[in-house]
């Protein structure tokens, strides 16, 4: 039964009953996955050291090494492992530590179907990546880097100021790193009931200014690597370009005959903001090598060619994989298809980027405007 091609899932909980319950309820999956069960953080680290694990599902509150410490260890030592939390309840202070180390947050009780669905979907990203280092680039993202200017503006917001809230919101919705993190946190159960089809503004509202301030204080939005001026400029440029695309696509939607509700508008804006998120993944994983490889590209097609040639993947693949890993329900894949020519190998997907059936309609509504906006905005 230990087919080496099977994906390996490790479940961690301090409660033995939980582990044996999961083991039994996932019995039917034994042909599909290899499964290990560790009672506590130390045991989990032993398993991770001795076997190749692809995905870990961990409880949060455990004696000694708890979930937050365990996932921190995994993110630091085996960043390719997909990390999920399965927890009943935990302190906010622990949550703040986990937001950059866990890809998704599931709540107890979660039934087997639910678990299987989430795990399978996450494994799809692994398959879509094809090569291990492409997967690593996506899985190791804690936060998408924000330009230093955005971070310093964030830190300068004086909370006692009357305009503080609107200033804070303005910074959040205009920054790819922050808005993608907010979307991630709302799309699974980090801070409450998960929301599907959530706009950046909704995510901001759902989390609330207090929690967002806590995230800022906890240093969630400070990207953790040394940056050259060149990368800094690149981050500024991508953010600025994405803002323009987002604004224009909303404008196009507005000018059209299409009856748009708040959700469609919000999704359009989010799609515009995040359409180039893959380029930021490239930069945070490969650094200036990415800029070197793509600096000659003069249009969108050129860029994709260059990315493919040098790294064997494109920013569209990276971007949509990250969103899927974070369980963000945005049709990035569709946007990608819409805006790229067919000269690339089609991704082996069947629209899973849109998890919900109702989302498909939104996708159909949103994509044309995004494509138009991307075409109209000068290439960045």
């Amino acid at each position, binding site marked *: 039964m230990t087919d080496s091609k099977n994906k390996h899932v490790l479940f961690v909980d301090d*409660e033995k*009953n*939980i582990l*044996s319950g999961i083991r039994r309820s996932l019995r039917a999956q034994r042909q599909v996955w290899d499964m290990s069960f560790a009672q506590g953080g130390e045991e989990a680290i032993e398993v991770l050291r001795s076997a190749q694990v692809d995905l870990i599902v961990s409880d949060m*509150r455990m004696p000694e090494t708890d979930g937050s410490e365990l996932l921190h260890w995994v993110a630091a030592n085996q960043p390719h492992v997909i990390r999920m939390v399965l927890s009943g*309840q935990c302190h906010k202070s622990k949550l703040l530590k986990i937001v950059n180390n866990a890809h998704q947050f599931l*709540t107890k*009780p979660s039934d087997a179907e639910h678990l299987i669905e989430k795990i399978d979907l996450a494994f799809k990203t692994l398959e879509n990546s094809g090569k291990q280092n492409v997967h690593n680039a996506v899985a190791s993202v804690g936060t998408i880097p924000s330009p230093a200017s955005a971070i310093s503006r964030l830190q300068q917001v004086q909370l006692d100021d009357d305009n503080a809230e609107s200033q804070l919101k303005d910074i959040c919705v205009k920054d790819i790193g922050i808005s993608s993190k907010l979307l991630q946190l709302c799309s699974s159960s980090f801070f409450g009931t998960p929301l599907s089809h959530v706009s950046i503004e909704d995510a901001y509202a759902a989390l609330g200014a207090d929690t967002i301030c806590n995230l800022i204080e906890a240093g969630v939005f400070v990207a953790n690597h040394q940056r050259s001026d060149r990368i800094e400029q690149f981050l500024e440029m991508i953010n600025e370009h994405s803002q323009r695309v987002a604004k224009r696509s909303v404008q196009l939607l507005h000018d059209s005959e299409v009856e748009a509700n708040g959700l469609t508008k919000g999704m359009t804006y989010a799609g515009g903001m995040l359409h180039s998120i893959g380029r930021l993944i490239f930069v945070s994983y490969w650094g200036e090598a990415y800029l070197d490889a793509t600096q000659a590209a003069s249009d969108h097609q050129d860029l994709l060619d260059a990315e493919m040639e040098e790294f064997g993947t494109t920013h569209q693949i990276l971007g949509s994989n990250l969103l899927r890993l974070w369980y963000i329900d945005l049709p990035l894949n569709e946007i990608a298809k819409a805006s790229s020519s067919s000269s690339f190998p089609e991704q082996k997907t069947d629209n899973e980027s849109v998890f919900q059936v109702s989302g498909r309609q939104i996708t159909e509504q949103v994509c044309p405007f995004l494509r138009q906006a991307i075409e109209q905005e000068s290439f960045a």
Partner: protein
Amino acid sequence: MEQEVWQRRVNRERAARNEAEAFLESKSRELYLANQKLTKMADAWRYENEKNQAILDNAAEGIVTFEADGNIATFNPAAERIFGISIEAAMLRNFDELFDDIRFGDGAEIDSYVLDEAKEYCATDANGNTRVLNVALTKAESNRAISFVAVIQDRTKKRALEAQLAVAQKMESVGHLAAGIAHEINTPIQYVGDNTRFLQEAFDDLTGLLGLYEKLLFAVEQGAATDTVINEIQKSAEEIDLEFLAEEIPQATEQAINGTGRVAKIVRAMKEFSHPGTEKQVAVAINHVLETAATVSRNEWKYVAEMETDFGEDVPDVTCYVGDLNQAFLNLIVNAAHAIEKRQENEPEHKGWIRISTRRVDEQVQLIFSDNGCGMSNDTKEKIFQPFFTTKPVGQGTGQGMSMVQRFIVERHSGSISVQSQEGAGSEISILLPVIPPR
């Protein structure tokens, strides 16, 4: 000569008259002065009287005096307001008739109500509302008579506010606990669900296998060939891993049953805990109350400490306000857990424990809550019963926990609390509760 005599006589008489006049004048002057003094005294007396009356009339406290036979002699307007009856009506009554729980009997018992400190009694006012009154009764003995003075404070509103505050605090802690309770319930629900799902699948597998056995039975009955069916059975048994199922099904069933039992226990404890409680004191098994408090707070302590209980079997039921004791015990357990958590911040390897023991001590029950947490400094120890005193960071402690414990144990149940603590080593809170609270 005759003239001389006459002259002398005249002189004598004149002198006498002068003397008489002077005497009269001095007497009338004395009289005048005396009269004036009297007027002044009368004025002063009237003034004093008016002042006393004004004090009596305007005092916020009800002031009632009565004679040794209990007949009311003075009844000020504040008293009229408190009891809702006029002075005229009051004059016709005995003092003890004003109260629900004061009875003088034939008068011999009056002295037993004269105490050094004020005490709370209940009265039913003219509108039928129960009022909580703080009464200070003193005895005034003079040469002529014995009289009693009662100064009465209306505590009804204050008590109502306190009760509201207690409810608010209880709801706050219930709300806080709810999150922990949710976790306590989520865990068993998770594995009850998982095991049940497994049982369902296992049943499907077994039904399939059973179908093949039926086929075999049929074949045997018909005298037909059985090789193929037996093969099928063997194959199916292997596929569904019959051995595994035979081993796992009983365990899964047991865990599912245990899980529902655990949920039921938690829900029951929460229900008992959050029950508003009766306003009357009832006799309860104190060990059970402690167990309930430990169950609802389990999520607060289970990650930091082991809970050890040593409940005396001979501990009698205690007549008490059970809601108050629930809350007091919960506060003590949560405090112990926090103290251990605090110590573990510096000593991560420190194994925490919380011990609760109960003993009967004559007509009292002794409860001891001890922990090996961070302990308290002498300064902290002195202040723990002060309202709003907390050692927790801002936003985490309201400083009400221990002052509540004090109010509930000492004031409400006439119990006593003693605190022992050593900084860095742990604390021990010892409580004595009378089995039957004194009147």
